[in-house]
């Protein structure tokens, strides 16, 4: 396998120096009331890179604000159509200024001013058509493979996840970190039982304490919720306890030292392995930390992830708006039933048809072709899920980033 440091691609240069591997027009609804019109506009552009994201809530929320701002200025995003009803709390002045500052084409349509549903759809469609023509003319610049930020998540896990796909991602992560990539893993609720082990991997003692506390926070939070980060399907798939699921999940991060802790919307400043803390701070205010897998993907993307490595045992089918999802199937039986949705078959390890090392290399090869423009299975099938809920966070403290 080529030295990863030397692999060159091309990407779309953004004003902050980051480069995108896609050039997407995002239609961002700033309250649920304009979600329908966002979808209607997007429906005219089904096979083109026009993705809908948004925040449903009418009440204000600093976390949602931070994530939406981060996603509208994500390296994979070329232009933004903001949709407002007119009376919602979302700070539309701030988000449009943030986007303007990045020299991206942006416009805001407010339904109550524009004249309602038909007017918004007509105006929105016209704007998207024009901006797509503009973006098509945009040239790419040289990009080093290790400028990519890669995140990982597991969903629909069963006991094979922790034996095949997750350790394979861990191995791939180890190689990526050595080549200078910034990579990240999350779901501290799935590190319960491993807080000491993880703290020892921190690059500073202070960070070790922060990582330890993040897991303790997660254990307390889920205990109050009454549910661990554990779905009935996990048990059907052979996982019995959260500690068991943790061991499997934890292996996705690999063995590199941990360089920092991020909160959603924090962008890593240099390469290394990062833990994304998705569990809110303080007493539970808004319910479960992440109501589904897509909510976790939104937060990984808000931290700058260009690509998501998604491992699954039972068979997740989701993709995502904004960043391509590479689906890695841990279970050979699941792969046999759902191969159209799976980019990589890590289940081969259980059949003695491949080693962890083989699958890790397949994952990296897939990252290269996807970064070069090849569609993942979920992109090809049209999946563009997006979920963003209310949360409350304290900012990441000084010990969090080295």
């Amino acid at each position, binding site marked *: 396998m080529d030295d990863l440091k030397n692999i060159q691609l091309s990407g779309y240069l953004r004003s902050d120096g980051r480069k995108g591997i896609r050039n997407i027009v995002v239609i961002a609804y700033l309250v649920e009331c304009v979600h329908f019109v966002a979808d209607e506009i997007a429906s005219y552009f089904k096979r083109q890179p026009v993705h809908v994201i948004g925040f449903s809530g009418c009440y204000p929320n600093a976390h949602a604000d931070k994530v939406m701002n981060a996603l509208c200025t994500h390296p994979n995003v070329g232009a933004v159509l903001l949709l407002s009803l007119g009376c919602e709390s979302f700070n539309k002045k701030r988000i449009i200024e943030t986007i303007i500052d990045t020299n991206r084409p942006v416009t805001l349509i407010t339904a109550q001013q524009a004249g309602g549903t038909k007017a918004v759809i007509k105006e929105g469609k016209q704007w998207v058509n024009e901006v797509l023509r503009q973006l098509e003319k945009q040239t790419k610049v040289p990009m080093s493979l290790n400028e990519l930020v890669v995140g990982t998540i597991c969903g629909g896990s*069963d*006991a*094979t996840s*922790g*034996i095949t796909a997750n350790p394979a991602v861990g191995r791939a992560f180890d190689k990526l970190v050595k080549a200078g990539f910034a990579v990240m893993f999350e779901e501290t609720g799935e590190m*319960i*039982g491993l807080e000491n082990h993880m703290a020892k991997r921190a690059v500073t003692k202070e960070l070790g304490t922060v990582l330890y506390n993040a897991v303790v926070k997660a*254990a307390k939070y*889920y*205990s109050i919720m009454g*549910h*661990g980060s*554990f779905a*009935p*399907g996990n*048990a*059907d*798939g*052979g*996982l*019995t*306890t*959260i*500690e*068991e699921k943790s*061991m*499997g999940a934890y292996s996705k991060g690999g063995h590199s030292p941990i360089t920092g802790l991020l909160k959603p919307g924090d962008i890593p400043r240099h390469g290394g392995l990062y833990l994304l803390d998705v569990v809110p701070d303080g007493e539970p205010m808004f319910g479960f930390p992440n109501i589904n897998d897509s909510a976790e993907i939104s937060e990984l993307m808000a931290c700058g992830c260009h690509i998501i490595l998604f491992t699954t*045992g039972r068979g997740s089918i989701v993709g995502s708006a904004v960043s391509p999802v590479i689906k890695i199937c841990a*279970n*050979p*039986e699941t792969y046999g039933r759902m191969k159209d949705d799976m980019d990589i078959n890590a289940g081969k390890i*259980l059949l*003695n048809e491949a080693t962890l090392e083989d699958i890790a290399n397949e994952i990296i090869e897939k990252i290269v072709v996807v970064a070069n423009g090849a569609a993942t299975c979920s992109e090809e099938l049209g999946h563009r899920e997006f979920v963003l809920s209310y949360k409350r966070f304290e900012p990441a403290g000084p010990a969090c980033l080295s």
Partner: protein
Amino acid sequence: MKSLHKNIIQLHEKDNVVVVVVTLQPGDTININGNGITISSSLGIGHKLALRDISKGEHILKYGIAIGRASEDIEAGMHVHTHNMKSDYIPTYTLN
């Protein structure tokens, strides 16, 4: 990680459970510690079988670490799951 048999894997030498790697049907036999065990109900990939006798209260070891405790006495070859094992942290909810 070693294959004790083509149907099961022991992930770590300290483990007292093994993981099933092909779906097992009632009547299938596998070899655990020199004993032939006959499977009595179907077991999906990923489920655990006891590698040796485990007493109530004893830790279940997988990946070389404790993943919970036996909630009753378990015999070698028995299915180990929510009916005879529980978390040291948070209860497990299942589809019932």
